[in-house]
């Protein structure tokens, strides 16, 4: 195993090829690697295959920019900042993207199985629901279950009469993405990763992936993290590339560091009601800036400062949130 390489964001994202299968750490609008999303769009990646426990602003952005060929997940939206992923909805409605709907446990099973070297994991979730309706096996209907794509298996799922309690149970096939990109609070010089706050499904999606890019708010001395190994999530040998990039999760939130930028996401959602709206938005916020540093500069210190978490609470105690 080679120690992880510390590289620029541009360099890290250059490793990802058109057609690769990707997943991301985080949950809905929390701890998403947004700087990497912008860079994927800037580098005009095409035909990406997303397999996500759940999507969020990041998924919808990649879809809007035309980077995604296949979307597989349980959800895409912006929490209270936008009702659903408009870009994804539009492309699904127009038949411009391939997709598979799953329940949360299904995708979690896919990636957990992948993380453990297993071909499948069982679950009882969502039996009798339409994501398991054979008519909704969209990749199958598109003729993609013929073995030509290593990321698309023979079966969306298999119903199994298990021999122990004679119950019917669903077997969900493993997924092993080519890449997982995860934003975290801290990474050590040798790659030990620490996540503060909820871990969501990071452990599973990272371990399932063949290559990992960790984008950290801060690179810290390895020894510091190793004083408390029970608080760390991953050893360095599971990490390929380390990128140090403060605020790299904006506009999503980062526990203990900053809130999601609700206004920013809300404006994004409003813009995405049409493709033209998204294109204009992308022109301003992605293509109109040279890199993530210029993006931060455009946001300005005062906007970012207003999102900062109160260290005693883990979230902002000053941000205005409601009508009162």
């Amino acid at each position: 195993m080679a120690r992880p390489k510390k590289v620029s964001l541009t360099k890290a994202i250059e490793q990802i090829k058109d057609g690769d299968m990707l997943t991301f750490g985080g949950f809905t609008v929390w701890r998403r690697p947004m700087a990497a999303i912008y860079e994927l769009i800037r580098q005009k990646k095409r035909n990406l295959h997303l397999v996500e426990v759940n999507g969020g602003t990041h998924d919808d952005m990649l879809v809007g920019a035309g980077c995604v060929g296949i979307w597989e997940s349980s959800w895409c939206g912006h929490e209270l900042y936008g009702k659903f992923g408009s870009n994804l909805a539009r492309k699904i409605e127009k038949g411009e993207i391939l997709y598979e709907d799953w329940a949360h446990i299904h995708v979690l099973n896919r990636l957990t199985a992948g993380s453990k070297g297993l071909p499948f994991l069982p679950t009882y979730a969502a039996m009798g629901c339409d994501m398991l309706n054979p008519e909704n096996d969209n990749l199958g209907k598109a003729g993609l279950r013929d073995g030509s794509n290593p990321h698309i298996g023979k079966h969306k799922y298999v119903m199994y009469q298990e021999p122990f309690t004679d119950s019917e149970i669903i077997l969900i096939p493993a997924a092993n993405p080519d890449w997982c990109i995860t934003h975290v609070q801290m990474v050590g010089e040798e790659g030990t990763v620490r996540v503060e706050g909820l871990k969501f499904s990071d452990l599973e999606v990272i371990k399932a992936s063949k290559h990992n890019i960790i984008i950290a708010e801060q690179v810290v001395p390895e020894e510091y993290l190793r004083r408390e190994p029970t608080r760390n999530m991953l050893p360095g040998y599971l990490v390929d590339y380390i990128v140090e990039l403060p605020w790299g999760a904006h506009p999503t939130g980062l526990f203990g560091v900053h809130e999601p930028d609700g206004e920013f996401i809300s404006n994004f959602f409003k813009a995405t009601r049409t493709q033209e709206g998204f294109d204009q938005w992308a022109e301003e916020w992605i293509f109109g800036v040279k890199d993530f540093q210029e993006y931060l500069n455009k946001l300005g210190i005062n906007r970012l400062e207003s999102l900062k978490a109160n260290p005693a609470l883990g979230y902002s105690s000053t941000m205005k949130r409601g009508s009162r």
Partner: protein
Amino acid sequence: MESQKGYSKPGEFKPLDLLACAAAREVRDGEIVFAGTGLPMLAIMVAQHTQAPTAVCIYESGSIDGRPIDLPTSVADARCSYQASVADGLTDVFGQLQAGKVDLAYLGGAEVDRYGNVNCTFMGGPAGKRLTGSGGNSDIHSLAKRSVLIMPQLGQKRRFVERVSYITSPGWKIPHWPSKEWVPKQQVYGPAFNGGPAAVISDMGVYRFDENGEMYLDTVHPGFAPEDCRENCSFDLNISRCKGETLTPTYVELDLLYKVIDPEGIIMK
């Protein structure tokens, strides 16, 4: 205290207040409750401040039994984890769900049908209008002992339908794949059957499910007649079992909603 028993009068509360309070009353003390973003959060918090002080709230992001001092705006909000017992992740909480540890779940949806099947994926089926997709909605409806659906209804009868155009989450009767035969949920889930939809709470009434898993009107909100509920429904709703009016929010509950739980006016604007 005497004031705790005081129910507010029509005009003293908004439809949203009644929705939140009616939902809150579904919680029994000591229950393990799985809640989603928005109104469900308000409902479990009202319940914890009133009849269910030892009820525990789980969010699907992984936080367990948080004691937020500020209202969270998503299930992964740092506010959910404040003074939580455990803050881990999805494998933990969905594992507990599947193991039958969840007594009650609060969820929303875009469409519900006679049998409590829920749609939050496509209005009008896969050729129709795309929504968010399942999220945890399907898992939680599949595996919780009781689930409560919170949905707007007034003027939106297309949300209460004979048969949802896409089953995101299972009700009491569901198709058995691959045969498509419609059978009771228990038959499909076998030994994994834990329960199913217990109530649908709208801005017009509280609905429950009968012995055949069919929805009926249980109580009607003040200001509406049972017939109003049926008219705001696309199927032939059973209103014969309606036992009267839904209890209005108490003054204590209103105080909790506006002054204690959501003083910032995030949902209770």
